[in-house]
């Protein structure tokens, strides 16, 4: 892959990030009114005054933008109205939990979903195909939070098998094997929920892509040289289908994060989604902006990484 390709993709990522920064400012300064937000918050009058000064809210818009930019770039995202802690600390504290949830669920769902799509496509019209496709459609039609509710109802309430909230048992073990076991038990339901919510799309997309690829001439060549169907699938159909799959995977990252937000909220999983949704009710604007910034940055970075992976997979990009 040429450095030119890497460079151009990096430029796109940086541009998007810059746009997010500007947008974030304008949304809350131009449309919203941060002074009023501040006044309604639960901070003490003295703290409000100090904050007003610190954020430069008493200055003109251009100066405000300059201050906002320099503060944001230095990692100063303001102070939470609710907890009165720096937003950056709050968000960075929650981020690993979100990344763990999203990372595990995304990888699991992409692998399992993609694999199910390949199964469906290689047996088009069979009972397997029908079951997988119809099942996917139904799961696709479910909101994330509804799947979460159903899971809690069945596994936690009816069967009482798993804990339904938080990352670990309050007052439980804080280190060692017992701690990890506790976290694992708490994580199981949210991760499963997110994985299952995402599976369907990957199955549907993979099935469609593989079916498309199966119409290509080089598949006929594969069969013609005497490869058994399963090898044609593994060596020619799947590698080619991976290209559009990776593209969709990249476009999907934002959607996955959205799902994670809701699921964190339902399971009280202490990630940035839970933090953000909690902030809606508290009208905690600095936290909202902070989660939005960090979430966007995470998605942009993930997209950039996927772009690079795509370049590695496709020789037409790599050698161009």
């Amino acid at each position, binding site marked *: 892959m040429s450095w030119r390709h890497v460079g151009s993709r990096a430029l796109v990522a940086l541009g998007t990030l810059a746009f997010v920064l500007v947008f974030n400012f304008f949304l809350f300064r131009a449309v919203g009114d941060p002074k009023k937000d501040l006044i309604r918050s639960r901070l003490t009058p003295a703290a409000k005054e100090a904050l007003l000064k610190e954020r430069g809210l008493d200055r003109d818009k251009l100066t405000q933008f300059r201050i906002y930019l320099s503060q944001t770039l230095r990692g100063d995202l303001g102070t939470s109205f609710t907890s009165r802690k720096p937003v950056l600390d709050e968000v960075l504290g929650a981020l690993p939990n979100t990344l763990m949830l999203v990372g595990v669920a995304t990888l699991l769902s992409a692998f399992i979903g993609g694999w199910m799509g390949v199964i469906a496509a290689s047996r088009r019209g069979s009972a397997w195909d029908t079951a997988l496709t119809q099942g996917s459609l139904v799961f696709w039609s479910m909101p994330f939070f509804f799947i979460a509710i159903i899971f809690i109802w069945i596994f936690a309430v009816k069967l009482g098998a798993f804990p339904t909230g938080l990352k670990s048992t309050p007052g439980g073990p804080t280190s060692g094997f017992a701690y990890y076991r506790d976290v694992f038990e708490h994580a199981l339901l949210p991760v499963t929920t997110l994985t299952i919510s995402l599976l369907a799309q990957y199955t549907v997309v993979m099935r469609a892509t593989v079916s498309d690829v199966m119409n290509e001439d080089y598949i*006929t060549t594969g069969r*013609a*040289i005497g*490869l058994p169907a399963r090898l044609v699938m593994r060596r*020619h159909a799947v590698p080619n289908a991976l290209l559009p799959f990776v593209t969709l995977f990249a476009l999907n990252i934002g959607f996955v994060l959205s799902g994670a937000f809701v699921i964190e909220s339902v399971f009280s999983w202490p990630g940035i989604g839970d933090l953000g949704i909690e902030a809606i009710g508290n009208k905690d604007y600095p936290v909202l902006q902070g989660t939005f910034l960090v979430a966007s940055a995470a998605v942009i970075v993930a997209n950039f990484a996927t772009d690079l992976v795509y370049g590695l997979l496709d020789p037409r990009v790599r050698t161009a």
Partner: protein
Amino acid sequence: MSASAPDLPADVLLDVRDLAVAYRNGRGEEVRIVDGVSFQVRRGEAFGLAGESGCGKTTTALALLGLLPTSLYRPTGEILLNAADGLVSIHKRTERGMQQVRWAKVSMVFQGAMNALDPVMRVSNQIGEAIRLHEPGIDRRGVEERIAELFGYVGIAAARSRQYPHEFSGGMRQRVMIALALACKPELVIGDEPTTALDVMMQAQILQLLEDLRRDLGLSLILITHDLSVLAETCDRVAIMYAGEIAEIGTVRDLYAKPEHPYTQRLLAAFPAVGGPRQLAPAIGGVPPDPADQPTGCRFAPRCHRVQDICAAQAPALRALDDERAARCHFAPWPTGSTT
């Protein structure tokens, strides 16, 4: 070789007998897109299969490799390959059985080759894959040597085998495809419109290459094309297909000198020859019939300029006119000098 297998003369490599290929339409009726096709290909011979799009020539070729799409089936027909190591009854082979025949004995060059090579795989890996598949014991060194040899045949520097298909031009890609077709030393190579997407000069290069390879390697060749003039220069014998049937078959020399089927007559005249008369030949009216709705009687009758009453009523058989020649027309042979 089983006792029941029919004996084939030693010089016949491929014998196709009464081949039909059909699908079921919406009402469950059998619709034949290839019907009663019989021909033989001799060792070392170039055999041409010509006709317009939809006449069944490509379907026939796919049937020879057992590569028909799942919607199609073969109601009748025997396909016998008189391979060097014994007779193969292709029509009796299962999918798994065919996997041993494909490429090792019969290989194919596809149209244009633009998409016939896997875009994300190095060319050397694609050719190597075919070689390893049919010679499991071969080592890396052996594969590399074979690839170098194959690239030598088709006139490309062996070093380029490490490249991807998109790095080759159209004509070069067709050469790579030919190298792939020769990878497992087949006895029969089928070229399905191998030069259709190419320009005249490139077409001449590729046809010359195929001719040289056939001579040097002792291959047999089936060339499928809609372009009768291409066959005239490369083939020994040709079959002209119309509406799923063979309309006429014979040696190139005889058939082109005196076509007996009115379709062949008009088709040959449709190619204005450089240096020939400066005028347009009369056109063949109408369009080929829908396979689901073939005319009773002669399938060409509705478009035929020499049609008689009997043609609409009775389907003509493919009648032998001499050892090499047969035509599916009630009136063949036509008196000399009446062929247009």
